[in-house]
Structure formats: C-alpha cells, structure tokens
C-alpha cells in the first residue's frame, strides 16, 4: 500500500516535471522575445553543444564551426520574434545553423556539389554492408573525408533527421539529386572504411614480417 502510494506520488511528480520542462522552454523563448539576455543565455547553454556539432559536421573544422555557431545564435537572437512555436525551437535553430554553415562553405569556395548523378537508384544498388565493421571514429573519419556536397547531404540525412525533400529545399537541388548524392556518399563511406581496413591489414602484415 505504502509502495503504491509512493509510486502514485512519483508518477504525478514525473508528469509535472515533464510539463514544466516544456513550459520552461516556452517561457524562456517568450522572455527572449522581450529582449531578456539572461533567458537567451539559458537557451544558448541548452542548445550550443548540439548546434556546434551540426555545424562541425558540415564545415569540418572546429574554429569554423565555432564561428558558425556564434553567427547562428546572433541571428537567432535578433530573429527570435519570427519564431512562432510551429516547429520545435531546436529544429528552428538547426535550420539557421545549417544555412550559416552552407554560407561559410560557399563564401570560402569550399562548396562542391556534383550536379551530375541524377540517375535514379535501382533496387539492387542498395549498399551491402556485409563484413564491414562500423566504428564511431572510422565512420567519423569517412564522413569528414567526403567532398562538402556529399558530406552535407549525408549528415543532414543521417544525423539531423532531415528528409530528402527538406534537404533538396535547403540546397536548392532536386529530391532525386539529394537521394543520389546520399547514395553515393554512403558508397564512398563504405569504400573509405574498406580501404582503411585493408591498409591496416597491410601495415599489420608488414609489422608481422
């Protein structure tokens, strides 16, 4: 009986906690809309790390990703009145970060989007990952090694949860191009990992000799 009561209390507390956490966010955003810098600092502390990583996956270099994150938050600060709670704040912020990162790539002429390759992907061209040992560090390296166009499409799809339709909109390309870029990016990732492992085996073999 005692246990049940405790559970009941715990359940209510959890619900209240959940409701509060949503409201804290909403309150923070509303405070930001009135120009409250402390509220914006709280939002920054909550979202900065994930936004930095969004940027880093697109621009590759840490200092550039820091700049992108900062520029994006400055934009968000001045545009916060345009946020209308239609999407989550994180999704809204993420779009700003992505656009800011793409701006930087284009500005620095690091943007290379291979426009050829709109060919439709046939069923049998599914990539066979059999026998490929996936490790975080290796996959990270493989993605970093991709040309910026492939890398952006791949990270937006794989990490940021964007659909091909959204990616196509952001990059001003067709949905098919986005799909084929993604497919080719995955192929390159696989090739990179395979080559890496082969290389390791060879160097391992050399050491064994």
């Amino acid at each position, binding site marked *: 009986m005692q246990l049940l009561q405790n559970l009941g209390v715990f359940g209510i507390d959890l619900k209240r906690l959940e409701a509060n956490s949503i409201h804290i966010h909403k309150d923070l955003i509303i405070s930001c809309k009135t120009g409250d810098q402390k509220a914006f600092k709280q939002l920054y*502390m909550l979202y*900065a*790390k994930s936004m930095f990583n969004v940027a880093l996956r697109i621009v590759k270099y840490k200092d550039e990703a820091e700049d992108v994150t*900062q520029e994006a938050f*400055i934009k968000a600060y001045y545009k916060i009145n345009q946020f209308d709670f239609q999407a989550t704040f994180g999704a809204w912020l993420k779009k700003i970060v992505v656009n800011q990162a793409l701006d930087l790539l284009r500005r620095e002429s690091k943007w290379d989007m291979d426009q050829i390759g709109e060919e439709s992907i046939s069923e049998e061209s599914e990539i066979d990952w059999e026998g490929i040992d996936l490790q*975080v560090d290796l*996959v990270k390296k493989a993605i970093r090694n991709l040309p910026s166009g492939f890398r952006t499409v791949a990270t937006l799809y794989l*990490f940021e949860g964007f659909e091909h339709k959204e990616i196509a909109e952001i990059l001003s390309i067709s949905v098919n191009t986005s799909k084929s870029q993604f497919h080719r990016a995955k192929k390159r990732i696989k090739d990179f990992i395979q080559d890496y492992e082969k290389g390791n085996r060879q160097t391992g073999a050399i050491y064994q000799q």
Partner: protein
Amino acid sequence: MKKETDKLEQFINSNQSEFDSEFKPENGWRKLETKISTKNRNSQSIWMMAASIAILLSLAWMLYDRAQLTDKIYELENLSVNNKPYTEIENFYQQDIYEKTVLVNQMSVKTNIKIDTDLKSLNKKYADLKTKVKEQGGHPKLINAMIQNLQTQINILEQQLRILQDLQEFTHTKNQENEISI
C-alpha cells in the same frame, strides 16, 4: 516517411551521441555576449542620436520661427507711411473712430434711434490684415488696405452722424411747426 534503414543508418542512430565533439558553451557565451550587447548598444545609440537630432532640429526651427515673428512684429512697429510711423497713424484714426463713436452714441440716445456702432466685420478684417502683416511683412498693399479699413469705419460713423443730425433737425422743425400751429 523514412524507408527501411541500412546498417550505417542504424549504427549512427544508435550511437549518435558518441559522434558529438566536446564544446564548452561557457566560452562561446562569453564571446557571444559581447557581440549581442554591443549590437544592442549600437542600435540604442543610433536611436538616441536620431532622437536628439530631431529635438535639435525642432528647437532650431522654433527659435528661427520666433525670431522671424519678433522681426515681423518689430517691422510692424517700425512701419512708416509718408515718414510717419504707422502706430501714430493708427492711433490717430482710432482716436477719431472712438470720438465719433461716442458722438453717434450720444446722438442716438438723444434722438431715441438705435444705431449699431459696433463695426464688427470691419474690425475683424482689420485684425486679419494686422496678422497678415505680422506673418508676411508690411507690404504697401496691406498697409493701404488697413488704412482704407480705418477710413471706411470713420466714413460710416460720419454718415451715421449726418443721418442722425438730419433726423434731429427734422424732428426739431416738426416740433417747431407743431408749436406754431398750436
């Protein structure tokens, strides 16, 4: 709608947090804070500057307008017609008007005939002309109109006086006739 995911997609989904690099938001905030507050201060100071410029401009305009107005009043006081200051001419006419008004009023009481000595519309026109001179300066045409206005007032009063005198004479002789006939 996401279709079925392959091994790579599943791997990333289940290890996403391990892909994240470290980031210290405290350092980032310190840099960001200065940018936000300077931008804020900038926009504030721009507004302050705009406001003070607007205030200065309106103040300058007010002073200029006031100076113009006093100039014009001064001009009115310094106006002269045929080497006589306008104020003297005005005084002369207005004294004449006053005396004649008194006379007409006395006569109208004596003869028991009501006469309107209140030359409202002419007086109003005179005042209008005076403000026009203040605003636009003492153009000779305006001054002429003012003098004509005063002269018209005097003319009217003189005519009223004449009519009243005629009437008085008429009733006087009538009375005499009556007396004679009696």
